[in-house]
């Protein structure tokens, strides 16, 4: 069982490792190092409590009562450790305003959120577990854009396997091999794939059809592929050479672990705990791992020799008040794993790790363009709002030489109707009832009620198809996180100041994606309803105009790049083990290290990198503690000792 400690217990104590952040990366690093016997302190800025059954039920109730089911809706407001919320952003006619935690001064909005709580964003993630493709690691060398990784897919492959075992991934290895993403022909995932949805089968009717991409000037063939999930499904008895796999159940209540049964609320919340969260990893912490929630790390402390001494953190009792007390803890190794944006913010505020000037820069996301349509009435209902948000996709546009011409994209086939794009199904009810009146503010006379309302809703909602186009965004130095003395949160810590824009390369990708979407809908005989244009003079959030056409994008929740990895200290913040070049005992772990994000959800890659880093941290600690070995021939020398070699 997970046990948490009060932040005061760590005051002025010394640990082998301090991990900042109890999210996905931080929890895995802590678990691995704890298993190897190191004393680990995990400091989490946010609150916990979800690891108990009562906490889980409380989150269920909070989520169900939330009016807007946005990713952070099951969580309560925390003034001491605020998190960005997608609701912070609003269009304001010409551009956008940003209230809340982020300060934004860029051309375009960074529409992505994260969660500061025990479990981090892993508490509200969708759960898609895609590996990056080998080509994704060298886009500059192959296609002339972005930044290359100092390591390749082969270096990361064993850690991908370990990550899939750790999380418990349900997928179809054969399909991933067909995409060129896995090599071992006998490899299977721990669990069988989540069954594709009926929506997926509707899309599968286009298998073998071609679609023309006018920007890349190339034809692509459509094939629907299922996507691997970090979600309980049917164990595959062939896994691990026939050892099989036993899924991990719920945290906090024995015998309640369930497989996915189609609740369709994964983001933000799985009521049956089928989706993996870091709480499961935390439940396996060894006794030498201490988890202290409500501890906001305010500074990473440097010594005069460039070696990090430890951290300063503030603990609070009441999240609504931000009144807090400062403490210090020391360690041989400090790992910041607080999210790419939080890592950058903290290290900038501490004045560390920025010899290259790249800290905070290269902020990335997967700008996601939403498109939506109604399938033809002849085809009947397609059954949206059942199952996880997406169980399949079209992968063809992710790869190939077309990447030189425009950003590649992955097409997520959405299972949740027009939820993301238009707020369905609630918005359908509002529209049918004429809520808000007509353009002049008069009551809508054509509103429907009763049986007619039910039929209208059933017909409309039941045919909603949404396709989500996740664009690869390459590293761009001008997209960055900075801090500014003028902008602080309630505790007095600097807030992240974001400067964000989309490059030409990405915009061209969005143009291509929009055309591909229309072609797909046409081939399906569906009626497209995508509308990115301003309404009554107000442009939607994430709007831009390109060659006289309107486009809109949303944030995917995939923050990355802010402590970029490289082979050279002058142009990167961390090495391939995510160790800061400037401080040999400071690690910045997370998607912030990724030089490129490809077109795959980054969590699995982050976990693989974290496991690789944990191994290196262990080696560092072993090195630090191993006694010097004096080898001498005492026997031969007779009386005197001659030291012939000293092994450090």
């Amino acid at each position, binding site marked *: 069982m997970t046990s948490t400690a009060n932040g005061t217990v760590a005051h002025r104590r010394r640990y082998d490792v301090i991990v900042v952040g109890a999210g996905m990366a931080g929890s895995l690093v802590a678990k691995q190092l704890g298993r190897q016997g190191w004393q680990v302190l995990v400091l989490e800025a946010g609150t916990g409590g979800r690891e108990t059954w009562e906490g889980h039920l409380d989150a269920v109730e909070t989520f169900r009562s939330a009016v807007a089911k946005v990713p952070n809706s099951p969580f309560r407001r925390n003034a001491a450790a605020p998190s960005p919320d997608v609701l912070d952003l609003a269009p304001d006619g010409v551009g956008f305003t940003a209230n809340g935690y982020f300060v934004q001064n860029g051309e375009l909005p960074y529409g992505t959120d994260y969660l500061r709580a025990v479990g981090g964003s892993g508490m509200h993630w969708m759960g898609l577990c895609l590996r990056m493709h080998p080509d994704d690691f060298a886009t500059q060398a192959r296609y002339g854009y972005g930044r290359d990784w100092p390591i390749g897919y082969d270096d990361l492959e064993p850690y991908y396997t370990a990550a899939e075992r750790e999380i418990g991934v*349900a997928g179809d290895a054969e399909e991933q091999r067909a995409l060129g993403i896995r090599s071992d022909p006998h490899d299977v995932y721990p669990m*069988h*794939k989540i*069954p594709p949805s009926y929506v997926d089968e509707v899309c599968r009717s286009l298998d073998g059809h071609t679609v023309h991409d006018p920007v890349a000037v190339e034809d692509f063939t459509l094939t629907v592929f299922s996507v691997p999930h970090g979600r309980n499904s*049917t164990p595959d008895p062939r896994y691990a050479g026939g050892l099989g796999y036993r899924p991990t159940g719920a945290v906090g*209540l*024995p*015998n309640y*672990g369930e497989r996915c049964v189609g609740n369709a609320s994964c983001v933000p919340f799985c009521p049956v705990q089928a989706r993996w969260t870091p709480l499961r990893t935390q439940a396996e912490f060894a006794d030498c791992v201490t988890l202290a929630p409500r501890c906001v790390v305010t500074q990473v402390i440097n010594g005069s020799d460039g070696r990090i001494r430890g951290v300063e953190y503030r603990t609070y009792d009441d999240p609504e008040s931000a009144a807090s007390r400062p403490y210090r803890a020391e360690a041989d190794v400090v790992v910041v794993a607080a999210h790419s944006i939080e890592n950058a913010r903290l290290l900038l505020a501490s004045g560390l790790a920025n010899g290259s000037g790249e800290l905070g820069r290269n902020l990335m996301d997967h700008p996601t363009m939403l498109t939506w349509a109604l399938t033809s009435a002849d085809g009947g209902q397609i059954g949206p709002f059942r199952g996880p948000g997406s169980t399949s996709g079209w992968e063809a546009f992710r790869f190939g030489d077309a990447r030189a011409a425009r950003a590649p994209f992955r097409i997520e086939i959405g299972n949740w109707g027009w939820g993301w794009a238009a707020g369905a199904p609630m918005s359908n009810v509002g529209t049918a009832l004429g809520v808000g009146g007509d353009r002049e503010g008069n009551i809508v006379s054509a509103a429907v009620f009763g049986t007619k309302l039910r039929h209208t809703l059933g017909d409309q909602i039941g045919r909603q198809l949404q396709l989500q186009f996740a664009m690869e965004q390459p590293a761009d130095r001008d997209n960055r996180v900075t801090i500014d003395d003028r902008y602080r949160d309630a505790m007095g810590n600097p807030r992240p100041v974001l400067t964000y824009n989309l490059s030409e390369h990405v915009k061209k990708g969005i143009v291509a994606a929009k055309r591909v979407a229309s072609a797909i809908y046409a081939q399906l005989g569906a009626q497209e309803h995508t509308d990115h244009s301003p309404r009554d003079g107000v442009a939607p959030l994430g709007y831009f105009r390109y060659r006289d056409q309107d486009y809109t994008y949303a944030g995917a929740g995939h923050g990355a790049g802010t402590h970029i990895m490289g082979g050279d200290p002058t142009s990167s913040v961390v090495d391939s083990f995510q160790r800061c070049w400037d401080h040999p005992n400071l690690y910045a772990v997370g998607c912030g290290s990724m030089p490129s994000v490809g077109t795959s959800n980054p969590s699995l890659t982050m976990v693989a990198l974290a496991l690789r880093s944990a191994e290196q941290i262990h080696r560092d600690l072993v090195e630090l503690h191993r006694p010097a070995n004096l080898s001498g021939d005492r026997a031969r020398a007779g009386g005197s000792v001659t030291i012939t070699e000293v092994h450090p």
Partner: protein
Amino acid sequence: MTPTHHPSGVRGATGSESEGLVLGDQELPFALPENLPELRTYLQGALEIEHLTIPPYLTAMYTIRAGTNQDAYYTIRSVVLEEMLHMTLVANLLNAVGGRPRVARPDFVRSYPAKLPYSALDVTIPLQHFSPEAMRTFLLIERPQHVDDSLPSGKGWTSIGQFYDFIRTGLLTLVEELGEDKVFCGRRERQVGPADFYNSGGEALPVTDLTSALLALRVITEQGEGLHDSIFDSNDQLFGEQRQAAHYFRFNEIRTGRTYGPHDTPDTPPTGPEIDVRWDQAYRIDPNASIADYARYEDTAVHEHAVAFNNAYAELLAHLEIAFNGLPRFMILGVPAMLRLRDLAERLHHNPHPDPDKKSRGYFASATFEIDQHQIERGHEIASARVHTTNLNAKLPVDLSAVEPS
């Protein structure tokens, strides 16, 4: 009365020697099973015992008003899941020793109030709404051996644990006499394994030899009654689950409204933190409700729903019989069947009793769990049709998208 022992099988039973048989009351000799047919008969009896408790537990659970008594609800639910695991493990044991589990028979479902089979206790088990009385009934059912250590009299056993002790001892003796291979002669393909029925209540382990058989028996008795002299069950030793109090003690926590604390023992009441139990937040039902009774009233809606419930229950039993007899993968079809039962039970409980007098006294309608031969046959037809339309095998993920609801 001293029961006499018949070498050819159990007195009064019908059928061939190789089958476990569904029995009426008082047909099992209160002696150790001395041959394979008797062992199978005992195991079939165990199947009935494990099943017998499920309708009363479900009734208590589904009469809790939504949103109240969450602790009690999830506790009873976790016990139900474990009882289903026990049924599965018993079916595995029976299959392993060459028997054939029978669950889809009219006499398999006792009529309630039912008597605990083979029990020396003069205890009837009614279908009761969530109440202190219901909890007391459950405590009697789950009473651990060490709470009452007396030997079985000629009338029967004094605890379920004692009954399983006989099975265990009989099994060990038979293995010694006949050899492991001769005893465990069942086909491996009939075993329900973790991929077929995982994570609910622990793990469905296949039974293939003495070690696995003893482990299965241990799971059943320790989940129910607790490790010898402790309050906790062995889940954390066996499956890596968190510690959980055995059924008896979980029910006692609800009944007393307190959890067991760190200094409590099996013989003393719980002294830990209180649980919020509200007995008034339950739908009161008539334990003697019956289809025949419901048929008498002008408003037929309750009657129709009660019949529909019993039909759905027959379908569930048919699914289990199919799964326990060579198609273990099809256990998964029990899941939508159970959800249908839940929906029908909740609908019944939300409606007042059709008798105006009972209604005025605050009684609601309820499920009756009465099954006749006709319903069993209908259940078999529907279940078999579903099995045909569902493509399930061990190499594929479980995908129920083709299944038609009834």
